[in-house]
């Protein structure tokens, strides 16, 4: 049941990236939540099959995929979905800059692309930014 719930969460996280306007709640999960789930479901497998490898550059992820047949059921069923959660959050954060391009130009004049202040500016201008931009901010975890 727990695995089914986790898989559902992964699906929701992925679906969230495609919703133009959603409820005011992030549809992607935080990096901390996803990383915590990986440790919870695969911590033992990682120490057993991937010792010495790190999260960075997907070294642990590749190792888990290569050792698929040896993994515990919980890890085997969930590690790919958990990775998708992290990817969904990353994609949602990247998407903000595209979705909110016009809003940034209109409401945040003077800030150039790549300036970390753009998201703060868009949040401060939340009453006037477009609904699609607001949804994108929320989906990326930047919202209220």
């Amino acid at each position, binding site marked *: 049941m727990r695995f089914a719930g986790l898989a559902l969460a992964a699906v929701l996280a992925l679906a969230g990236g495609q919703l133009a306007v959603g409820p005011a709640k992030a549809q992607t999960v935080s990096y901390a939540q996803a990383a*915590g789930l990986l440790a919870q479901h695969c911590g033992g497998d990682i120490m057993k099959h991937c010792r010495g490898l790190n999260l960075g550059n997907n070294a642990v992820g590749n190792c888990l995929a290569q050792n698929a047949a040896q993994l515990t059921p919980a890890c085997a069923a969930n590690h790919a979905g958990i990775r998708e959660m992290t990817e969904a959050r990353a994609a949602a*954060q990247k998407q903000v800059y595209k979705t909110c391009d016009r809003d940034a130009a209109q409401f945040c004049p003077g800030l150039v692309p790549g300036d970390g202040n753009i998201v703060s500016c868009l949040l401060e201008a939340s009453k006037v930014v477009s609904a699609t931009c607001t949804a994108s901010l929320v989906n990326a975890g930047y919202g209220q």
Partner: protein
Amino acid sequence: MTMFRYAKTRLGAALLLAGTAVVPALVGVQPAAAQVFTPNAQIVQGLQTSVDDVPQVSAEALRGLAQAHMKYTGPPESRPPLAVQLDQLAQINVEIVFDLNSAMIKPESYRTLGSIADAMHNPVLLGYKFLVVGNTDATGTRELNMKLSQERSDAVVEALSTTFRVDPRRLQSVGLGEEALQDPKHPDAAINRRVQIFNVGRAGALAQQ
């Protein structure tokens, strides 16, 4: 060797600023504050900087100071502190558990890493650069401690910048080995084994990649 299991999280405790005028703004940073924060909010708060004229600290300069510090050959408690004003930077100490004598971050610390990444993606901190600094206690040889702490801080930065998509241009990594002990009177104490993250100022505009 049992070195380098990082100290317990002491979020925000080390945030100090030189100018007394800004002190009132920092009261909420104290860990004993009544309000309950999520770990992520604590990290964000600890890394928020209230002044713009923070001392310039580069990874290269800090590494050079640590190397130069290795000339002091006496017992750890007799060595002078590193001549650098890190206290003036917004900073946090985090516990990240590594495998023994290895740069492998153990799964029990994945969530902490994710929380650091979430904080660095928080709108309040998106415009800033960070220095990730690894420290050991004084168990083992100084040379090995220096090498291992650099590999470990590199592993933290690599995870933040690849898995968790913090722009690598916002991150620098320095291993200080046992050259900057938190508690020089107890050189083997766990409190010395820590990862520090410093806010080193504005990132400026970074071209989209």
